């Protein structure tokens, strides 16, 4: 589909109406919205799971849920928040913003992008359908062998885990390659790598982590599937296997995964802080390089999750040292962020509050991380509530706060309306207080010897008070999320019109209307610095005249918009059928493969490409 900007509004109206247009869409902006909305629904589900967990633990010997249900809840809470919330909300921002920020009309492979989303949806449903058949995964998100073997987990619970993660992995891998190619190949003229916004840089690092880390868990899961389905013994000691193999594979994936979860927030914060300080990011090359270094070192620290397994003092010392090294690039980032706001003109919008809250909370999670980087200390803290406090400061205080910063920052770009600032600030303060009331006492509980993943405790254990406090805090967080939902729907309908550039931004996405037209840029921008829009807005009159002249000299541009396609969703359905086959019989597997092959064939020969 080729045309010019003038002819597009009509075309947009026709192709952009009704449910079918969403099902067949290959527009990165719409796919971003699909990712975001889906992930938000799962955020509510995962949050509900957390609230049930906290209600059960509010008092000793709680009777809200049965032990087996509790175990399923903490397993699904982790899987949901990691794979169905933080990763896809990150993906929503990558999808929507990366082409806009690098000055492109879409991602490199728009149909592959649609396929990533549909496969993600299939994987998410696969994991959660387990609730409907009464066999949700209940072995922890880390699923340590041999508890996952047929002997100890005879139901399909572990199978839902295996195939759910495999499907989600396929989706993440496809998106990973898509964004690597998009970022490397689709940048507007003049946008050199070092002129890319830091959010784009962090996205690039994340995608490399994804494509390198996910194959490892894929192999681990295939071994597990073979053990369960075909009687192999990769993880079973009786036959010469080794349960530690799973732990190595899992954490070799699992630790880079932690950075997959935190780097999007770091990227967002690196955009929000400069905008609302009215300054450029301080030491941008250092922020970028430390992001790369964090990603690189992230592959060399996995055994710090295994200090208690008895790998021996040499391995412990080595992994302790590499883990501590990660604190250096992390500190560099934090100092650069503070230096960014130092001397600036700080506007405390909700987005900015969330970005600042991110720094304040992430520091706490980072420091407790330094504590258990020390194996002797970790021997006490591992698998205690101290670690629960740590990961929630990193993933809630860090990732979720960063993602909320991004939501308040880019919502106006996506919808053309501003989220209400009053409600936003109320939400922020309630959430900040709530998260500290919930998670800070968990440090004390851990120090007092309360293990993780226990569905009950006794009044005589001395853990009553702080558990009650934590539960009260979790309800505060719940209220803050309800405020956000209210704000979201109200602002969507009747929020203040945003205009193209509500925050006085410096990057390319603010140069185009909100919401952006289907083709994003009527003319691809010409980039000459890391703050292209700032340069235009704050140029001297002479520079402005020169720019306008150059702009006039460029003629109308030919615009190529990829047409919609339903083959991605058909292919995703084929995968769903294939994986469902493992629960029924091989013919269903074969049917799935046939659908995938047919859809791929049709995809390749689809007219218009």
């Amino acid at each position: 589909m080729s045309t010019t900007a003038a002819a597009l509004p009509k075309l947009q109206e026709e192709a952009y109406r009704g449910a079918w247009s969403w099902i067949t869409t290959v527009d990165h902006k719409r796919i971003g919205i699909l990712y975001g909305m889906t992930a938000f629904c799962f955020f509510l589900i995962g949050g509900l799971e957390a609230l049930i967990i906290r209600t059960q633990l509010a008092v000793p010997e709680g009777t809200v849920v049965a032990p087996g249900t509790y175990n399923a809840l903490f397993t699904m809470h982790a899987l949901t928040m990691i794979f169905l919330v933080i990763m896809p909300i990150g993906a929503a921002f990558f999808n929507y913003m990366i082409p806009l920020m690098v000055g492109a009309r879409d991602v490199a492979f728009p149909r592959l992008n649609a396929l990533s989303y549909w496969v993600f949806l299939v994987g998410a449903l696969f994991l959660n359908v387990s609730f409907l058949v009464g066999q949700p995964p209940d072995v922890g998100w880390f699923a340590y062998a041999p508890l996952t073997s047929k002997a100890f987990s005879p139901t399909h619970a572990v199978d839902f885990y295996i195939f759910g993660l495999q499907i989600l992995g396929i989706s993440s891998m496809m998106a990973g390659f898509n964004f690597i190619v998009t970022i490397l190949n689709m940048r507007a003229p003049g946008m050199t790598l070092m002129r890319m916004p830091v959010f784009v840089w962090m996205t690039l690092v994340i995608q490399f982590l994804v494509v390198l880390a996910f194959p490892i868990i894929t192999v681990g899961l295939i071994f597990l599937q073979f053990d369960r389905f075909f009687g192999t013994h990769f993880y079973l000691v009786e036959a010469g296997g080794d349960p530690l193999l799973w732990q190595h594979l899992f954490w070799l994936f699992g630790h880079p995964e932690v950075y997959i979860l935190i780097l999007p927030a770091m990227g967002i914060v690196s955009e929000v802080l400069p905008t609302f300080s009215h300054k450029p990011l301080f030491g941008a090359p250092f922020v970028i390089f430390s992001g790369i270094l964090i990603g690189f070192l992230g592959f060399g620290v996995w055994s710090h999750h295994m200090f208690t397994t008895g790998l021996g003092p040499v391995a412990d010392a080595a992994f302790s040292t590499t883990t501590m090294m990660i604190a250096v690039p992390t500190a560099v980032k934090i100092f650069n962020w503070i230096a960014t706001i130092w001397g600036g003109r700080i506007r405390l919008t909700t987005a900015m509050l969330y970005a600042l809250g991110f720094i304040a909370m992430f520091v706490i999670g980072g420091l407790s991380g330094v504590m258990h980087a020390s194996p002797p200390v970790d021997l006490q803290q591992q698998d205690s509530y101290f670690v629960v406090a740590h990961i929630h400061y990193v993933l809630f205080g860090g990732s979720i706060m960063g993602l909320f910063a991004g939501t308040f920052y880019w919502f106006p770009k996506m919808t053309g309306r501003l989220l209400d600032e009053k409600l936003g600030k109320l939400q922020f303060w309630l959430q900040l207080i709530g998260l500290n009331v919930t998670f800070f006492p968990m440090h004390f509980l851990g120090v007092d010897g309360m293990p993780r993943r226990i569905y009950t405790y006794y009044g005589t254990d001395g853990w009553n008070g702080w558990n009650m406090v934590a539960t009260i805090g979790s309800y505060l967080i719940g209220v803050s999320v309800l405020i956000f939902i209210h704000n979201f729907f109200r602002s969507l309908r009747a929020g203040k019109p945003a205009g193209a550039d509500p925050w006085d931004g410096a990057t390319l996405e603010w140069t185009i209307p909100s919401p952006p037209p289907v083709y994003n840029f009527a003319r691809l921008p010409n980039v000459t610095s890391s703050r292209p829009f700032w340069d235009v807005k704050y140029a001297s009159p002479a520079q402005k005249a020169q720019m306008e002249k150059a702009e006039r000299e460029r003629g109308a541009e030919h615009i190529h918009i990829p047409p919609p396609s339903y083959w991605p969703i058909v292919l995703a359905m084929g995968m769903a059928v294939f994986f469902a086959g493992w629960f029924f019989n091989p013919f269903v597997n074969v049917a799935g493969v046939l659908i995938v092959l047919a859809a791929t064939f049709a995809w390749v020969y689809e007219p218009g490409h």
Partner: protein
Amino acid sequence: MSIRRHRVLALCLLAGAVAALAGCEMVSHTRSTINPVSDFGWAIQNVYKQIFWWCVGIFVFVEALLLIAIFRFRVREGSHETPEQVHGHTNLEIAWTILPAVILVFIAVPTIRTIFAVAAPAPADAIRVTVTGQQWFWHVDYPDLGIRTANEIHVPVGRAVEVSLHAADVIHAFWVPRLGGKRDVMPGRTNRQVFTVDKPGLYHGQCAEFCGTSHALMRFDLVAEDPASFDRWVAEQKSVPAPPTDPKLKTGATTFLTAGCIACHRIQGSPAQAQIGPDLTHVASRARIVSGMLENTPENMSRWISDPQAVKTDARMPNLKLKSDQVEVLVAYLQSLR
């Protein structure tokens, strides 16, 4: 700063103080990780204390810097001037790269020293204890003393103890917080923990690695006592109980052998010699039953025997559907095994 802001600050401080005081009231004394009673625990505590204060210092420094920046450079009403566009400062970058690296050296050195110190082999005269984790209780063996018991470990104060850890099914973790750190209990390999307890007392322990449905109830006790008491305990555990003579206890012993208990449990001096479930030779000597879950009273014991799954979900001990008079004589018999 206005008076109002001072008030808010004072209120915050007050709230913090109250919370801190409340915290003192909310401390667990039997499981605190920072109140060690063994050399192993103290070694960890030493490293932890150093790192803790470094972290507190860094925390205060960074958060203060952040707050100062926010308050100092917050936009004033009507101010629209563009701040100086600073892009970076190389010397600053070098400084804040080196500073954390130097602090980390101060953390890494005691860390690595302690890693090797706590991994040292046990002295030759150490008491050897073998602990085997199994869904959801613990076998306890003293190979040199010929004792087998369950869920209650006795050690003498002032003498090194070497605990060897085995798993009978899935991965568990052995953790007595006041003694020191935890070690995973792995199928197919043996992990060790060496410590000398310096203070007599009853210390609670618990499985710390998620191991299935009733992971939360896989508890145990560690009793550290003076050497004389320990020796008395050893003698008691080594004795073989005489067959009962009281008619009620006799019926109980027969019930034990005929109702199915014999399939899993051992009572020395009787034909019951299976070693799947906990050894019951001296079950009445233990303070608690069902792996540290319930006080060892006749009522609790009959509750457990009558319907194990109602007490501990998915417990491996089958419900033998015993009649209440059977349970009564069984409990009487078991309670006689001191």
